[in-house]
C-alpha cells in the first residue's frame, strides 16, 4: 500500500505540486487580505477567470500535441467573437442564431490555422500570430469602438446568479459553468478517447506516432479546431460578463493562458501534462492577480509584469525538473 502511494505521488508529482502551490498562494493571500477568506472570493476566481480557463483548456491540448504547438490567437478570437456577436445582436439577429454561429466561426478559424500548420508547414506561432492579428483586425473592421449588448437573453444568462447550495450568499453565474463543463469534456477526450491519446503520442514523438499509423495530420487540425472552439466559448462568456464587444478585449490573454498551462505542469515540449493541472494553473494565476488587485497601491500594469515573471518562474522550475529527470 505504501508502495502504491509512493508510486502515485511520483507519477502525479507535478500535479500535486501545482495543487500545493495553489493552496499556499491562496493561504498567503488570505493572511494578507482577510477578505479572501470569504468563500465568494474563491468563487470569484472562477467567475473572473472563466474565459481564461476556457482558452487554457484549448491551449493545453495544443501544447500537449507537441512540435512547438502554441495558439497565440486566443485573445484575438475572443475579441472578434465578442465584437461580432455584439454587432449582430445590435442589428437584431436572434441570440439563438448568433451563439451557434460564433462557435462555428471559432472552430473554423482554429481548423484553418491547424490546416495551415499541418499542410503548409508554417510554424505554429507564426500561423497563430497571423490569426491573432487577423481576428483583431476583423474586430476593428466591425467596430472601432466598444459595442454594448442590450439583448435580453444575453442579459438574463449573464446576470442570473446561481447560489451555491449549503453556502450562504456564495454564487456563480451560468457562464461560469462553461469552463468546468469543457474541462470535463477535455478530461474525457484526453484520457479516454483515441483523439486524446493520439495527442499524447504525437506530443511525445510525432515521427513515432506517424509510424504507428496514427492519424497525426487529422489530429493536429482537430486540436487547433478544439482550441478555436474553446476560444469562441471564451469569447461568448467574455462578452456576456461585460455585456459588450470590443477589439481590444483580452489583450495579452495568450501569455496569461500559456503561463497558466505551464504553471499547471504541462511541458512546452509536448506529451506531458494534463488539463487538471491547467485548472490549478489558472486558479494560481487568478489568485495572484486578485492579490495584486486587493493591494490597491499596485497599478494595473503590475499585473502584466507579474504575469511575465510568473511565466518565467514556471518555465524555470519546469526546465530544472526536466533536466533533473533526464539525468536520473
Amino acid at each position: 500500500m505504501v508502495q502504491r502511494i509512493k508510486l502515485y505521488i511520483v507519477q502525479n508529482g507535478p500535479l500535486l505540486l501545482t495543487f500545493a502551490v495553489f493552496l499556499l498562494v491562496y493561504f498567503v493571500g488570505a493572511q494578507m487580505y482577510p477578505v479572501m477568506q470569504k468563500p465568494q472570493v474563491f468563487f470569484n476566481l472562477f467567475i473572473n477567470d472563466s474565459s481564461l480557463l476556457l482558452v487554457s483548456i484549448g491551449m493545453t491540448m495544443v501544447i500537449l500535441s507537441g512540435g512547438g504547438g502554441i495558439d497565440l490567437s486566443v485573445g484575438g478570437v475572443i475579441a472578434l467573437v465578442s465584437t461580432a456577436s455584439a454587432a449582430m445582436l445590435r442589428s437584431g439577429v436572434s441570440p439563438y442564431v448568433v451563439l451557434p454561429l460564433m462557435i462555428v466561426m471559432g472552430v473554423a478559424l482554429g481548423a484553418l490555422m491547424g490546416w495551415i500548420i499541418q499542410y503548409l508547414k508554417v510554424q505554429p506561432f507564426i500561423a497563430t500570430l497571423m490569426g491573432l492579428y487577423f481576428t483583431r483586425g476583423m474586430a476593428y473592421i466591425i467596430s472601432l469602438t466598444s459595442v454594448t449588448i442590450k439583448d435580453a437573453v444575453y442579459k438574463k444568462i449573464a446576470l442570473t446568479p446561481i447560489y451555491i447550495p449549503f453556502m450562504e450568499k456564495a454564487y456563480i453565474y451560468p457562464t461560469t459553468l462553461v469552463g468546468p463543463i469543457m474541462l470535463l469534456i477535455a478530461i474525457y477526450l484526453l484520457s479516454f478517447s483515441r483523439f486524446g491519446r493520439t495527442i499524447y503520442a504525437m506530443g511525445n514523438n510525432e515521427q513515432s506516432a506517424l509510424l504507428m499509423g496514427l492519424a497525426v495530420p487529422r489530429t493536429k487540425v482537430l486540436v487547433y479546431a478544439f482550441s478555436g472552439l474553446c476560444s469562441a466559448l471564451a469569447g461568448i462568456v467574455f462578452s456576456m460578463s461585460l455585456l459588450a464587444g470590443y477589439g481590444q478585449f483580452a489583450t495579452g490573454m495568450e501569455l496569461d493562458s500559456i503561463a497558466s498551462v505551464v504553471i499547471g505542469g504541462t511541458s512546452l515540449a509536448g506529451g506531458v501534462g494534463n488539463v487538471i493541472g491547467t485548472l490549478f494553473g489558472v486558479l494560481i494565476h487568478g489568485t495572484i492577480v486578485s492579490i495584486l488587485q486587493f493591494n490597491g497601491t499596485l497599478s494595473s500594469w503590475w499585473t502584466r509584469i507579474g504575469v511575465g515573471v510568473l511565466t518565467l518562474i514556471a518555465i524555470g522550475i519546469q526546465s530544472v525538473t526536466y533536466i533533473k529527470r533526464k539525468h536520473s
Partner: protein
Amino acid sequence: MKQMSFLRRIRDSRLFWPLMAWFIILLFNAIVKPSFFKLSIMPDPVYGNHLYGNLIDIFNNGAPLILVSIGMTLVIATGGIDLSVGAVIAISAAMGTVLINPALGQKLISNEILTRNATNTPLPLIILADLAAGTLCGLWNGLLVSRARIQPMVATLILMVAGRGIAQLITGGQIMTIYYTPYFWFGNGYILGLPVSIYIVALVFILVWLLVRKTAIGLFIESVGTNARSTYYSGINEQNVTLLAYVVCGICGAIAGLIFSSYVHSADGNNNGMYYELDAILAVVMGGTLMTGGRFSIFASIIGAVVIWTFTVTVYSLGVPANALLAAKAVLVLVVILLYSDFARRLRYQLFERRGSHHGTAN
C-alpha cells in the same frame, strides 16, 4: 546561354522579389493615383526647407520599422524570433519622454513647466539611456534564449506582454506628451532637405553591416542559424553569437522608439510600436531570410520594410482605416511566408527550369 544565366542570377537574387513587389505597388499608385509621386519643396521655418511628398513619408515614417527589421534580420538568421520589438519601442519611447519631461523630479508641476521648451536632462544622456534600455531588453531576451534555453517565441513573448507593463510603469500609466524641439529633430528634422531619420537609418545600416560583414560575426550567425550544434562543435561559442543578435535587435528597437516618440511628441506604453513585430517579421521574410535561420541579407530586409511601408501609405492614401489594414496584413504575411516556403520554391523551380545545379547566393 550567358544571358540566360544572367537572368537567372537576377531572379535568384534576394532583392528580386521584394523589388518586384515594390515596383508593382508603385505601378499601382502610378495608375490609380499619380499624385502619389509628387515631390515638392516645403518651406519650413523651424527645420529648414525640405522635400515633401509620399515618397519622403515612406522613408521618414517607415524609419522605425526599417530599424527594427535590421535587428530582426539578425535574430531570425540565428533561427530565433523577437516578438518583443514593439514593447521595446514603447519602453524606449517612455524612457526618452520621461527623461525629457522638465517636471522630472519636481513636486510642483505646473502647466507652465510642461509646455516650456526645455528639459533638465542633457540630450546625449537621454539618448544613452534609451540605448541602454534597448541593450538591457536585448540582453534579457538573449540570455533567456541562449543561456536558459527557453524557446525564442516564449522567451520574447514574456517581454512582449510584460514590456508594455514596464513602459506604463515608466510613464506612470499616462500618455506622456513632451515639448522639446531639439528632441523633435530626430523625427522631424531635415539635413540637406532629407529627413534626419533617413540618415539615422543609413548610419545604423552601415554600422550593423560593418559589424556582421567585416567581421566573422555574420558568418557565425548564419552558421548558428543553419546548424547550431555543428557550429558549437566547430569551436564557436554559439550562445554569445545568439546573445549578440538579440542585443543588436534590442538596440535597433530602442533607436526606433526614440525616432517614434520624437516624431509623435509623446509616448504611450499601451500602443507605441503595436504590431511592429508582425511587420518586421514580414519584412525579413520578404528579404529572403528563412524563418528557420541561416543566410540573411540586411539590405534585402530593408527593401522588405520599405515595401511594407509603401503598401501601408498606399492603403492609407486610399482611405482604408488603420485597423482594417491589420487584418489585410495578417493575410499578406501568410501569403508571403508561403511564397518563400520550400514548397513554393520547389514549384517555381519546376516551372522555370529543368533539373540543374542550384547556385546559392551569398552576399
